[in-house]
C-alpha cells in the first residue's frame, strides 16, 4: 500500500493597516482593553455602513502580485451570511465570485504550489470563554471585529507536513517582505487551516481517496505539522477500519487539540452550510485601472526568490544566499554593505563577516558604513581573521574607521620581511632545543612560529614567519 497525502492550505493574514477594513477604528487589537477600538460600523449598530479601506485593498493587491497572481480589475465585495455571537452584522463582508487576485504560484525549492486566490475580507470579533464569579460565561470583544484580513487559498498541491511548513514560511516571508503584516502565528496575525485527504494505492492496484477534512484552531507552525501528520495517519487508519472514501457530502471539520496532539470532530457535512452569498449592496463595485495595478506593482520590493538568484550569481553558497534573503532586514544590510559591488570575493568576505552578527544581534542598518567594510577588505592581508571580525564589530559599534582602530590597537601584521627576519633570528638563537626538534621532525615548526608571534606581540604575519623560519633553518 502506498499513501499520498493531498494538502491544501487556507491562510489568513491580518493586515497591519492603521485603521480597520470598513471604519476608522484602530486595527490594533493585540493586548488592547476589550471593546475600546469600536464604533457603530464594527459593532454592527443599526444604520452603520461600511466604507472600504483603500490601503487594505492595495495591500491585498500587492500580496496578490507577490504571489504571482492575476488581478481581477473589476471586482466587488459580497456578504457571507451566518450567525455567530461575535459576528456583529450577522454577515461577513468578503469575496467569493471575484477575488482581488487569482491563479498565482509560489516556488518551494524546485516545487511549485499553485495559489487559487487571495481575497479581501474582514475579521470577526473574539469570543472569550471563561469562568467569572463561579459561572461559565462567554465575553465578546469587538476590537478585532472588522480588522482587514487577506485569505490566501492554495491548490491541494502540498504533499507533506514538511512542505506545508515550507509553504507557510514562504508566505510569511513574502508578507513580511512587503510589510503588510507581522504574520505572527502565535499572535494570530497569521492563521492557517489545512484541508487534508489521502490518496491510497492499495497493493491490488486500486486507487482510493479518503474524505476531506479541514482542521481548525491550529495556533503554531509546529502545530500545523503535527496536526497534518496526525490527520494523515488517522485517515489511513480510518479507511482501513471502515473503508469510507471521499464523496461530495462527507467533508468534515476537525479541531486541533494542542494538549493531546490530536484532532477531534467539530462539524459534519460541510456541504450543507449555506452562506447565502450575494453582492454587498453597501459597497459599489471596485475597479482597478491598469495604471493603478502597475503603480502598485512598482511599489513591490525585490522579492526573496530574485534576491537569492542575485546572491547566487555572486558565487555565494545556496545556504548563504538563502540566509541573507531570509528577511528584508538581512538583505538590506547585506546590500548596503555590498554597495553594488559585483566582486564575488568581496561578497563572500562580507557575508562571512555579517552572518554571525545578523543571526545573533539585531544590526541597525542606519549605523552600517559600507566604507568601513571596504577598508577592512582592502587591508585583509595585513590583518588576521580574529582582528577582521573584531574590527567589523568595533567600527560598527563606535562609528570609527576600522583602519584607525587597527592602528591604535596595533592589529596590523608585520609583513616587512627584514623586520620578521630579525625576530626569527632572535627566536632561533633563544630556542636551540626547539631548533633541534625541528631538524628531526619538520612538523614541529608550529612551536617556533608561536614563539615568533609571541615576541612580535601577535603582529607578525604568521605565514611570512613560517617561510622565513624554513629558509633560515634549511
Amino acid at each position, binding site marked *: 500500500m502506498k499513501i499520498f497525502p493531498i494538502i491544501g492550505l487556507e491562510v489568513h493574514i491580518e493586515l497591519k493597516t492603521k485603521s480597520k477594513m470598513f471604519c476608522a477604528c484602530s486595527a490594533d487589537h493585540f493586548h488592547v482593553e476589550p471593546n475600546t477600538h469600536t464604533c*457603530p460600523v464594527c459593532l*454592527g449598530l443599526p444604520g452603520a455602513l461600511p*466604507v472600504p479601506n483603500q490601503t487594505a485593498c492595495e495591500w491585498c493587491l500587492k500580496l496578490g502580485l507577490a504571489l504571482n497572481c492575476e488581478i481581477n480589475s473589476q471586482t466587488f465585495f459580497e456578504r457571507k451570511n451566518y450567525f455567530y455571537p461575535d459576528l456583529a452584522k450577522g454577515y461577513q463582508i468578503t469575496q467569493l465570485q471575484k477575488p482581488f487576485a487569482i491563479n498565482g504560484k509560489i516556488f518551494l525549492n524546485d516545487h511549485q504550489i499553485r495559489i487559487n486566490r487571495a481575497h479581501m475580507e474582514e475579521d470577526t470579533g473574539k469570543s472569550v470563554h471563561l469562568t467569572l464569579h463561579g459561572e461559565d460565561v462567554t465575553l465578546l470583544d469587538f476590537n478585532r471585529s472588522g480588522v482587514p484580513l487577506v485569505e490566501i487559498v492554495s491548490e491541494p498541491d502540498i504533499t507533506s507536513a514538511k512542505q506545508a511548513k515550507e509553504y507557510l514560511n514562504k508566505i510569511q516571508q513574502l508578507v513580511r517582505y512587503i510589510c503588510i503584516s507581522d504574520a505572527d502565528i502565535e499572535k494570530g496575525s497569521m492563521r492557517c487551516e489545512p484541508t487534508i485527504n489521502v490518496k491510497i494505492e492499495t497493493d491490488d492496484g486500486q486507487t482510493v481517496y479518503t474524505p476531506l477534512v479541514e482542521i481548525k484552531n491550529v495556533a503554531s507552525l509546529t502545530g500545523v505539522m503535527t496536526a497534518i501528520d496526525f490527520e494523515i495517519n488517522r485517515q489511513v487508519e480510518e479507511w482501513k477500519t471502515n473503508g469510507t472514501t471521499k464523496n461530495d457530502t462527507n467533508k468534515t471539520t476537525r479541531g486541533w487539540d494542542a494538549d493531546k496532539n490530536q484532532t477531534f470532530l467539530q462539524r459534519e457535512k460541510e456541504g450543507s452550510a449555506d452562506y447565502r452569498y450575494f453582492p454587498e449592496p*453597501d459597497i459599489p463595485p471596485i475597479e482597478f485601472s491598469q495604471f493603478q495595478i502597475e503603480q502598485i506593482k512598482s511599489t513591490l520590493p525585490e522579492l526573496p526568490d530574485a534576491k537569492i538568484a542575485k546572491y547566487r550569481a555572486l558565487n555565494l553558497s545556496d545556504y548563504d544566499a538563502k540566509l541573507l534573503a531570509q528577511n528584508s532586514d538581512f538583505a538590506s544590510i547585506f546590500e548596503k554593505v555590498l554597495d553594488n559591488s559585483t566582486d564575488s570575493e568581496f561578497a563572500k568576505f562580507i557575508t562571512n563577516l555579517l552572518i554571525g552578527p545578523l543571526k545573533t544581534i539585531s544590526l541597525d542598518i542606519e549605523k552600517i558604513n559600507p566604507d568601513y567594510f571596504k577598508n577592512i577588505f582592502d587591508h585583509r592581508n595585513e590583518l588576521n581573521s580574529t582582528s577582521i571580525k573584531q574590527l567589523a564589530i568595533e567600527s560598527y559599534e563606535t562609528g570609527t574607521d576600522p583602519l584607525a582602530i587597527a592602528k591604535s590597537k596595533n592589529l596590523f601584521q608585520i609583513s616587512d620581511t627584514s623586520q620578521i627576519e630579525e625576530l626569527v633570528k632572535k627566536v632561533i638563537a633563544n630556542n636551540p632545543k626547539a631548533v633541534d626538534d625541528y631538524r628531526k621532525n619538520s612538523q614541529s615548526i608550529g612551536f617556533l612560529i608561536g614563539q615568533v608571534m609571541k615576541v612580535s606581540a601577535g603582529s607578525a604575519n604568521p605565514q611570512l614567519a613560517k617561510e622565513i623560519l624554513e629558509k633560515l633553518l634549511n
Partner: protein
Amino acid sequence: MSDLNKLTLTQALSDLRSKKISPKELVADCFARIESVDKKLNAFLTLNKKQALEMAKTVDISLPLGGIPVAVKDNFLTKDLRTTASSKVLDNYIPQYSATVVEKLQKAGAIIIGKTNLDAWAHGSSTETSDYGSTKNPWDTNRLPGGSSGGSAAATISDECIVSIGSETAGSIRQPSAWCGASGFKPTYGRCSRYGVIAMASSTDSPGPIAKNAQDAAYVLSVISGHDPQDATSINENPWVIPSKLPDLKGIKLGLPNAYFPSQIKPEVKQFVLQAAETFKKLGAEIIELDVLDPKYAIAVYTIIQRSEVSSNLARFDGIRYGDDRSKFGQEALRRIMLGTYSLSSGYYDAYYLKAQKVRTMIIKDFDKQFQKVDAIIGPTSPTTALPLGATEGQAMFGELEDMLMEPSSMAGLPGFSIPCGFADGLPIGLQITTPQLREDLAYQIAQNFQENTDFHLQKPKL
C-alpha cells in the same frame, strides 16, 4: 399669533428671520397641535418636547433651517432619542449616534420635535405593520395614510410640524405623500446619505423630505443632500442646489406611459392625472404617450431584491449587543426574512436574485431609452386614493401592488416628486414626476410650475 404650525417652511423661515415670530412660539404651537390631534392620528412614536423647547431658546435663526420644527421618520437614528423603526425589537433602543441626514438638519438649525410612525422596519405601504399601531389619514381617520413614511406625511399635512423627513425604498416617500396630499421628494439614490438610517433594502433606500409644497421639499433636500464619506454608495456631488431662477415649462417634453394606467386604476385618479397633463400643456409642455416596460416586472424584481437584502440586513438584530431578541419580529418582517433567505439560498440564487438583477438592468435601460424621447415622465403616484384601515389584512403583496407605479423608477435609482393633483371623495390624488438621475432640478421645475398654477397643495384636512 397662534397656529404658527400651519405655516409653510418658506413662510416660517421668513417670519423667523424678520423676528415676527420666535422659534419658541413656533415649536410650542407644533406641540400644541400634536397634543390636540395626534391621539387621533398616531403619527408620532416619540416626542422630543423638552429638548426641542430648550433648543428653540438658543437656536441661531440665520441658519438655513434655523428654528424650524422638523419631524423625522423613526428609522433615522437620533442620538440619545429613542429610535425603534416601529419594531418592538428596538422598543427601548437609544442610539449612540445620529444619522448623517439628522446631523445635517441639526447643523442647519432644524429642531427635531419627534420621531414618526412607519411600517415596522419600513416594510409596507400603510403603516399598518407598525408594532405601535397604524397612523391614520388626516383626511379621513378611518383610512390609511400610506407608507412606509405614513407618520411623516400625516404629521406634515395635519400641521403637526413644518416639514418632515421620510425615506423611500420603492414608494415610501411618494405614496404616503400622495395619499395624504403632501409634496414628497424622493431624490436620486445616493444623493442623501443612508448612514444611520436603519437599512431596509440597501440598494434602493433613499432619504428625502415630505413637505406642504414642492418649494419647501426642494429647500429641505438642498440641506440634507451631499456626499457623505461614511456612505460608500453616496454620490460624490456637492449638496443639491435649488435653481435660483425657476424656468417655465415651454418646450419640456413630458412622457405619459400607458402602462401607468392599469385596468384596476381608480377612475378619478386617471381623470385628475390626465387633467394635470392638460395643465402642463397649457404651461407650454408637450405631452408624449410612452410605451414602457410593464411595471409588473418591477414588482417581481423589487420583491426579490428587497427581500434578499432585508433578510441579511435584519440579521444584526440578534439581541446580543442591543435591543430585544428575534422573537419580537412581527409577521411582515418574518415573512420577508423567510422569502429573502429562500431566494438567496444555494440553488435558488441564480433563478431569483441573479435573474432579478438582470431584469433590473433592463428596467434601467428602458428608462434610458424613454429619456431619449422625453425630459421627464409623469403619471399617477398610486392607482388609488387612501384605502380603509385594515385593507392590508391578508394581503402579503399589498405594498407591492400599491407601489407598482414607483417601483420601476426606484429600481433605477431615479429622482421623483409626488404632488397633489386632485381630490376624489375628499381624498387627495397624487401625481408623480420622474426624471433622469441627478435631475432633481427638472423634477422640481415641473412640480413648482404646477403648484404655481394650481391650488391642490393648499387644501387642508379638517381634523
